[in-house]
């Protein structure tokens, strides 16, 4: 199966390991992975800050970049959802809306793609230890991908998955919220970190680089021993 990777800007710039793991994982599962070089960002930073006009060109650029893709797979629930929102956001430009619709229909978040399209629940990964999963908000509520990451994690040999208390509460990332409203964000991430600590796990796993940078960055600042991992990294451990 031929897929085009939408790596996201955070992964491209700051978290290349997530991108590498995603590529290796998908190749191991029999996909041929392509990385359209023109790709930049899904447009959320501007869009979510109210700069809707500024974000439109970014959206159109992304639509153009993936025009020829068969499947677009993205290791982020939030960015995948943004791509799926394009038709709605471009509804006053019918020409672009139609093209956006094509993109939305072929876009999948990584775990959703593995479970729903590839129909694979056990990717053959192995990792000794305990993990808890933080269901990020956009992936869970807006994209409505809830069970796929848990299903995949539960099949990792040697890994015990412990439910995260208060898991539905946002970690306090929220893109620019994390810097604009840092006083609130700090309280939110602290509560999230406390929940993670209460589970006593080795790994905190998530499916969105933004949330993981927030929670992981806070845990690192506090010198906590919990390792922060993107689900692609876990699933790529064989």
């Amino acid at each position, binding site marked *: 199966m031929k897929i085009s990777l939408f790596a996201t800007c955070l992964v491209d710039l700051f978290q290349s390991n997530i991108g590498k793991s995603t590529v290796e994982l998908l190749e191991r599962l029999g996909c041929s992975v392509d990385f359209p070089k023109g790709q930049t960002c899904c447009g959320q930073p501007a869009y979510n*800050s109210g700069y809707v006009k500024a974000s439109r060109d970014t959206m159109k650029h992304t639509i153009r970049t993936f025009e020829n893709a068969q499947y677009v797979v993205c290791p982020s629930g939030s960015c995948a959802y943004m791509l799926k929102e394009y038709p709605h956001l471009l509804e006053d430009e019918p020409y672009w809306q139609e093209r956006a619709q094509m993109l939305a229909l072929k876009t999948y978040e990584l775990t959703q793609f593995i479970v729903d399209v590839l129909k694979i629940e056990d990717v053959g990964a192995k990792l000794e230890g305990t993990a808890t999963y933080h269901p990020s908000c956009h992936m869970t509520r807006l994209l409505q991908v809830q069970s796929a990451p848990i299903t995949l994690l539960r099949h990792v040999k040697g890994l015990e998955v412990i439910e995260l208390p208060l898991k539905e509460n946002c970690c306090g990332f929220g893109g620019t919220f994390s810097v604009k409203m840092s006083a609130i964000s700090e*309280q939110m991430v602290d509560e999230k970190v406390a929940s993670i600590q209460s589970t006593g796990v080795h790994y905190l796993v998530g499916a969105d680089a933004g949330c993981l940078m927030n929670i992981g960055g806070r845990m690192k600042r506090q010198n906590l021993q919990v390792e922060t991992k993107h689900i692609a990294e876990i699933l790529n451990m064989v």
Partner: protein
Amino acid sequence: MSMKISNEQFPNRLEENIQNEFMRNAVSSAQHRFQTRRAAAAEQLGNWEEWRNHGEEIRQHVLANLDYYLYELSENVVKQGGHVFFAETAEEANDYIVSIAKKKQARKIVKAKSMVTEEISLNDHLEQAGCEVIETDLGEYILQLDDHDPPSHIVTPALHKNKEQIREVFAEKNGYTQSSVPEDLALHARQVLREHFLTADIGITGCNFAVAETGSICLVTNEGNADLVSALPKTQISVMGMERLVPTFEEMEVLVSLLTRSAVGQKLTSYITVLTGAKKALEVDGPEEFHLVIVDNGRSSILGSEFEPILQCIRCAACINVCPVYRQIGGHSYGSIYSGPIGAVLSPLLGGYDDYKELPYASTLCGACTDVCPVKIPLHQLLLKHREVIVEREGRAPISEAALMNAFGFGTASSSLYRFGSKMASAVMKPFGNGETISNGPGPLKAWTDIREFPAPNKERFRDWFEKHKKEGDHS
């Protein structure tokens, strides 16, 4: 009290409330109870999504035909012997109500909980006119007695107070000498307020839903105070936000079911009362005179705008009870009687961006509010809409942010610019970190690194790795 509850700036309000440990514990445990009960009550029905869809279609139908239903409502109130006053502004509403109080030579007024009367500062106006105004909802009574402490939640207004604080208020103001056990405190309020019910000249209520077809007012409580407010005084005045109505009893019951389940997780609250006109001939209790005051106060300018869905709101507070931001900052931080997600959308619309422009940014757009709303208001999308209006229509965004975001749009809409910029990132950021993480970020990063580590840019961009990876693949 008016809608605005503080003259402090948003950051100051935040700081004060974040440090209020009792309040924050109270809020998180209240959220837990509310969420659990609401979820169970929704689950029980087995088809909650269908209920939400029905709630949404009823509310949208009413808004689309609002002029007709208000017409029908007013005709039917009059047919039942009542009076109707349409108030476009808070001032008009207050003047009318004060004029009734004067005409009746009213000295004592008992009130059931009503957000719209808080919004228009009705109590202040009545007190200035020489009336004694007594709130009878237990939570509201506590706040009123405590020198008008503002409400911090639209359903349980005294959520931020503990029982010791309440005992002190009762002791100081009423000479209360009993314990701080909630039962004792409630019994004291019962005794004090019972006397007020029996001696009041006017009863004022809000309105959960007006019913156009019959000219009725539906009131939803657990305490029974609204019933006594409307049964004992000779004059009753009900004040409603102009959008709070339904066509018939049949839609009323659906919305009441959605309200009670979403607000407190009950199938129905203890008292749902439907009042129609003044008392009928030969009836002993009930008001001799009934006035309905229908308040616009800024609502009509929301109608027909991109924010219209906020008028679907039935004031259940389910959005407040799941909000992870409200959880940390409590109700008073919002500076408005309307707090949480509903407050962050509604307060700037009714009170203006001068006072409330920060509220739409006090959200991570996590969508929990939208998920629980029983009438499907897209709350997080309306918050985004506010940001768009603030930036693009009002031009109120900070210049530095605007420059950054426009550069973002420019940079990410072009492959070559993006590639150039991303290549530079590693070099630019190098002095700020240890190679792996950045602890003291420059510019906009500072707010991030004040709290957390920021990952240093990849030494090798993912795209460069990928190119090599492909080449290796081709060789093998």
